[in-house]
């Protein structure tokens, strides 16, 4: 199965508030798209629409494949162990020994050996996010929706997790949509950057980064992309107006 996402002329309103206006976006199988925009502009709503948690007020949403969301924090069930949480992503596999085997592999990939029977609260923030990634990657999922997955982490851990995500996606390629405030993160990870406007969200600017992933933060195209994102966001900023 492939992980293709398509939004056509999507609008979302919550009562009187228009959150997303007439937005169209197609994300190809295996593509990594980063969505950036001012706070409260409707980025998370956009992910919720893609995940099927919200229905658009107008327009159509088409999602192919097994779509899974990764949350900012506390997306793991606190009453379940690391293994039980990851097993949630393998529910569709009937054979128990096959599930066990895949859990073992995932634990190895996220380098969390020795913690398989710990509960989320007993793990560090970075470890919790790695477990959540493992859960979302488990069982041949097709699309990852990442809702500021590293924003609750400290700077260094965030940095490490960014490389970790790039590595995981190289080993287990997925279509990915990343919502973030972190411009470096977007520029380093994504194939395509989508910058949204203030609410109601529309696409302000969109551009590709062609250097193959994974790439260094100091890669010239990444540095250039950071500049272009800043530029796109700056248009309405106070400094520019004054």
């Amino acid at each position: 199965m492939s992980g293709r996402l398509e939004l056509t002329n999507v609008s979302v309103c919550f009562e009187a508030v228009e959150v997303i206006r007439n937005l169209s976006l197609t994300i190809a199988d295996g593509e990594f798209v980063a969505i950036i925009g001012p706070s409260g502009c409707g980025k998370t709503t956009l992910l919720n629409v893609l995940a099927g948690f919200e229905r658009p007020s107008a327009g159509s949403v088409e999602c192919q494949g097994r779509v899974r969301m990764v949350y900012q924090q506390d997306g793991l069930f606190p009453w379940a162990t690391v293994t039980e949480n990851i097993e949630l992503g393998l529910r569709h596999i009937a054979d128990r020994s096959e599930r066990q085997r895949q859990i073992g592999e995932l634990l190895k990939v996220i380098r969390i050996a020795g913690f398989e029977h710990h509960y989320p609260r007993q793990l560090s923030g970075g470890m919790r996010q790695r477990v959540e990634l493992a859960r979302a990657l488990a069982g041949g999922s097709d699309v990852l929706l990442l809702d500021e997955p590293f924003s609750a982490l400290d700077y260094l851990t965030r940095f490490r997790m960014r490389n970790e995500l790039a590595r995981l996606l190289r080993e287990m390629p997925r279509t990915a949509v990343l919502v973030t405030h972190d411009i470096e993160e977007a520029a380093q990870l994504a194939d395509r950057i989508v910058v949204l406007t203030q609410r109601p969200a529309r696409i302000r600017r969109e551009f590709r980064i062609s250097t193959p992933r994974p790439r260094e933060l100091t890669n010239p195209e990444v540095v250039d992309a950071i500049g272009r994102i800043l530029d796109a966001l700056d248009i309405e900023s106070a400094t520019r107006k004054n």
Partner: protein
Amino acid sequence: MLIALWTVVWKAGVFHQSAFPSPLAVAQGFGVEIASGRLFTDSVTSLFRVTCGFLLAVSCGVPVGVWMGQKLSVRLAFLPLTNFLRNLSPLAWMPFAILWFGVGDAASIFLIFLSVFFPLVLATMAAVGSIPLVYFHVAQNYGLRRIEKLTRVTLPAIMPQVITSLRVTAGVAWLVDVAAEMIAGRDGLGFAVMDARNGLRTDLLVVEMIVIGIIGVLIDRLLVQLTTVPSVRWGYAR
């Protein structure tokens, strides 16, 4: 410490002798009550009632609370009544309890049920209402069916708060049981208190009070054990 203070107050004669038993008299009272076997049978009787009433109320109250927590229409329909009945002292039901069930186990169990059921319904309902939406999104994302949403999300998510409510309501249940037996009992620790009072046996009165207090603490100790289950620790640990 307490016994020393008790002895001092007794020696000083702050209260009349007949209204304030000596520690020694109470110790002897313990001996008498244990030897006659009455203390044991009264404790068993009271514990039986409180256990039945409590378990019955929990097995009804938690499901009803979950139901009310999940369905707005059910909540709107039953919340006012539940609030009304929760604020109505179970002891006010006493005359009806006796008329309907006679003097004995059933009347006490009925009153204990009332004292536990309504607070537990409200606490469970509130706990269900406070489950973060993200857990239900995860459940939907990973294809949990309706029954699994209940068993794998809702119930484990409310467990810590429910256990806290169980501890509170078990304490109330024990208070109500003793009170019920004092008013409408022929046996049980509450009746023993009234019996001691009627016989002006303040020494035995203190014996019953000590036993009632100890059993209350033991019930709570037992329920505290629930909070040590690994899958609910997240609700308590900081």
